């Protein structure tokens, strides 16, 4: 029905029968309202005269599998009749076309944010690059060499910073975070706060790309000996040591422990796989085996080893050929780390399911491959911009597969929705930049004014909608239309159509466009009719 021929059927039927309202019964509006609205427009009928698809799938076929046919038939009829009642009451919603501000704000100045900024600037648009710290580069400032080709992270960062500094269209603002979003799609007013001066500045932008990266999991006190046993560190700690050239003497039996803060049993912590840590650990094992060819390196992985990045399966094989020992443990019999009573190191106990032997390894370097999480202060950004987070704590996209960078806020796109390696992070940031430049290319945005309007004849100027502050978006004010006569008025650009004011209005003067009270009441009546 939703494919080309199906849509054509609807368009033809409208023309043939001179229809002025259409009801579709199939899946759900989220899935195909836009699809069938196009079919109406193709026939010259306003898309707003469509109701549906009425949920014959999610609300009927998928959930009522055991009730008798007559009951299902009745519900189907209820759903369709009520949709028809709404369709008859539908009205055309005005659409406003506005010029867009040809500036994108990129939040997060790591390699992803910098790459996205350069792409956008190359097109000729201005970029405001907002960075929380006082330097650009983000995570790669802490890393040493990046898989698969062991390229220098510092070189990558330096090259990007040099290009950013040369590009006049990019303005980098440091020590700042986003604290508020005002305005409307295509012309947002974003408030930034400088953490060093507490000063706030407001910037007018068209679209936003969020590339804030990730933070590492912080192990709990005592977790695998963290904070209690000497020699226990994270993979990030080891990277920093490698970068600073601090490893001068060979470590004794360095042992990596995978999945710290990832793949935890539901109810015990982060359920997800952090995707990059196995690859990172394998890369570090290669580094260590090259620096110190005579030491024995161990890697204790949890159930599955995941050299997921390109070229890493091959690097893992090479590591094994060079003598790195990969031990497999399962969560029913986890690895334990205790202080070695005889030395200033640790004893790591692993039951390896592959050899079916228990290993007690004396080590002075226990490296916890920590997982990744959304930045620990991302809650502030989420509140400021009005976006949401997924179950796993990362920023939420509209659809994991088909709309991987859109958010619930038009014009705001995500360059990070999960733990990813450098290449995938940069590519997603570019995807966000691509969407962010669409309205900038076109020069205008179309805003659907699905808002609350006021019937001036019914409005008695009681001020309840305004005084009660019930509007979450500050879209209501009172104007004096003649001496002593006040009427309520809606700021159409700020109104988000939530309907709260229409509920509180005692005379019924306030009503939601396309969701009129009469329409909802008639819909309900039809649904309840025997």
């Amino acid at each position: 029905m939703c494919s080309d021929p199906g849509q054509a059927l609807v368009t033809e039927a409208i023309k043939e029968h001179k229809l002025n309202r259409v009801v579709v019964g199939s899946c759900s509006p989220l899935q195909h309202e836009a699809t069938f609205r196009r079919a109406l427009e193709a026939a010259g009928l306003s898309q707003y005269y469509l109701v549906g698809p009425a949920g014959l799938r999610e609300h009927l076929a998928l959930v009522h599998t055991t009730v008798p046919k007559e009951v299902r038939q009745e519900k189907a009829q209820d759903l369709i009749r009520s949709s028809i009642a709404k369709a008859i009451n539908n009205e055309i919603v005005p659409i406003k076309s506005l010029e867009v501000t040809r500036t994108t704000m990129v939040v997060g100045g790591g390699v992803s944010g910098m790459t996205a900024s350069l792409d956008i600037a190359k097109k000729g648009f201005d970029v405001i690059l907002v960075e929380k710290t006082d330097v650009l580069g983000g995570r790669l400032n802490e890393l040493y060499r990046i898989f698969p080709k062991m390229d220098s992270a510092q070189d990558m960062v330096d090259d990007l910073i040099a290009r950013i500094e040369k590009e006049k269209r990019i303005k980098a603002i440091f020590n700042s975070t986003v604290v508020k979003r005002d305005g409307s799609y295509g012309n947002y007013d974003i408030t930034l706060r400088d953490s060093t001066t507490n000063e706030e500045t407001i910037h007018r932008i068209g679209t936003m790309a969020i590339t804030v990266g990730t933070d590492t999991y912080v192990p709990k006190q005592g977790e695998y000996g963290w904070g209690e046993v000497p020699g226990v560190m994270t993979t990030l700690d080891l990277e920093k040591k490698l970068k600073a050239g601090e490893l001068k003497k060979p470590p004794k039996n360095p042992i990596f422990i995978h999945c710290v803060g990832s793949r935890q049993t539901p109810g015990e912590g982060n359920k997800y796989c952090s995707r990059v840590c196995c690859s990172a650990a394998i890369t570090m094992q290669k580094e260590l085996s090259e620096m110190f060819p005579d030491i024995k390196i161990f890697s204790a992985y949890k159930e599955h080893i995941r050299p997921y990045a390109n070229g890493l399966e091959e690097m893992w094989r090479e590591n094994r050929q060079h003598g790195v020992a990969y031990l497999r443990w399962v969560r029913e019999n986890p690895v334990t780390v205790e202080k070695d009573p005889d030395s200033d190191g640790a004893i790591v106990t692993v039951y390896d399911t592959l050899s079916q032997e228990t290993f007690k390894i004396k080590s002075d370097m226990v490296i916890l491959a920590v997982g990744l999480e959304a930045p620990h202060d991302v809650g502030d950004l989420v509140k400021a911009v009005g976006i949401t987070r997924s179950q796993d704590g990362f920023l939420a996209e509209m659809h994991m597969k088909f709309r991987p960078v859109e958010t619930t806020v038009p014009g705001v796109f995500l360059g990070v929705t999960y733990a990813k390696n450098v290449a995938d992070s940069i590519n997603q940031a570019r995807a966000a930049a691509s969407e962010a430049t669409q309205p900038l290319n076109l020069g205008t945005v179309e805003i659907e004014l699905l808002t609350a309007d006021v019937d001036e004849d019914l409005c008695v100027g009681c001020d309840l909608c305004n005084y009660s502050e019930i509007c979450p978006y500050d879209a209501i004010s009172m104007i004096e239309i003649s001496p002593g006569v006040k009427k309520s008025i809606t700021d159409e650009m700020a109104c988000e159509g939530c309907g709260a004011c229409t509920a509180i209005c005692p005379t019924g003067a306030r009503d939601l466009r396309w969701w009129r009270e009469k329409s909802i009441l008639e819909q309900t009546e039809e649904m309840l009719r025997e």
Partner: protein
Amino acid sequence: MVSESGKKSGATTKPTDVLVIGAGMAGISAALDLADGGHHAHMIEKTVSIGGNYVAIYKIFPALECSACVMTPLTSFVGKHSNITIHPLSQVQKVTGSAGNFTVTIHQKARYVNPDTCTGCQLCVRACPVEVPNEYDHGLSLRKAIYFNFPQQIPLLATIDRDSCIGCATCAGVCPQDCIIYDDEDKTYDLNVGSIVVATGYQEYKPFDYTEYGYGIFPNVVTSLEYDRQTHPTGPTDSHMIRPSDGKEPEKILFVNCVGSRDVRENISGYSDHCNKVCCSFGLKLAQVTRMHYPADHCEIIYTYMDMRTAGKALEEFLWDTQHTKDINFVRGRIAEIYEDPDTHDLSVKMEDTESGEIIEIEDISMVVLNSSFRPNEGQEELAKILKIEISEEGWFKEKHPNTQSLETNRPGVFIAGCAHGPKDGTDSVNEGKGAAILAHSTLPLPTPKEKEIIPPAEITEEPRVGVSFATVEELLVTR
């Protein structure tokens, strides 16, 4: 205050169109982002319809959504977009010029059907007397010499496979619109574009080299994509998974991971040392779809693996669900050999259960699904020569830099996205398609907006006239 920035295109002679080679998921994502941003995208597609491997898949991991539910309206939208031109049955023959100004010569094969009059009614398909193996179903079904890949394909036009056509003109006789053009000819024409995006995808590795598995000899040993077609409503078995040898419902299905990848043996054709990244999740999805179709007391499902590499968003949770709630038996080990009973065509395997250390034999297996890997698509090397871009050691298109420039090639103005440069899942392909879009257009001038087509408003009477349309019961139940 509106910024004055943005290069103006004005009366430029520099093209703002972009060429997208390959109309799979990555190509579609690139084309849509370009088109929505005002640039015209020319999609060059080798086969008769767009969507590539992704539109042929039934359910997508991890949410087990129906792929067609999103892909059919998406491809329909692509087909209708005023800023996208689809060139089916086409390949790139020659490229001259440089970044910002390429002249691309396209060779389009003859369709033998008039694209302006064909409505996709399929009367010709019903009438055609010739049956040949259907490549879209990986040879599991037959198609006619005049055919559609599936009934909702875009563009919705019939095509005659001239090699199998016998010229009987039955199709021409039944076609109500007189669409058949027997003397249709191949066309060659030029396009002037500013940038090129290569999104030619992959093909499935067919494991004939695994002689110990009997693929191609034992009828009940199939690959993952072949089995997926069996689960598909437009596939060869109407969404009902059955044994190819006798059409009976399977009572025991065995899944085998890592076929054609993580394998350093010399006899495996193509590059096979890598981890193919997506097959673990794909295999789990097939196991779950099998369980949705056949309850545990009807069909036993055994999943064999070395490591489960479900390392994407929500995929670890998907693995947990498959392992703990679906009555699917996971055995960690690589199967050594598949044996067949020549009378029943039942299969049995011998393998080591590496968690217990024991050698086990599993008998009376109805079907074995080999979770196969990806290989570069046909014609990759020739295309690389035409575009003057490099191929990596692993056989995929070569990235300029594996970390910071993985969507760029050695040639400015030519970009890559999706599986064309290495195996990856749908999410990554979509992100890369979009990323390639901005790379492609950021060096081009602003496009001049197209005149919007004015559709005359319909005559509307005061009295409401409501039309109600339904999706069929099959559609609703099958999109489960």
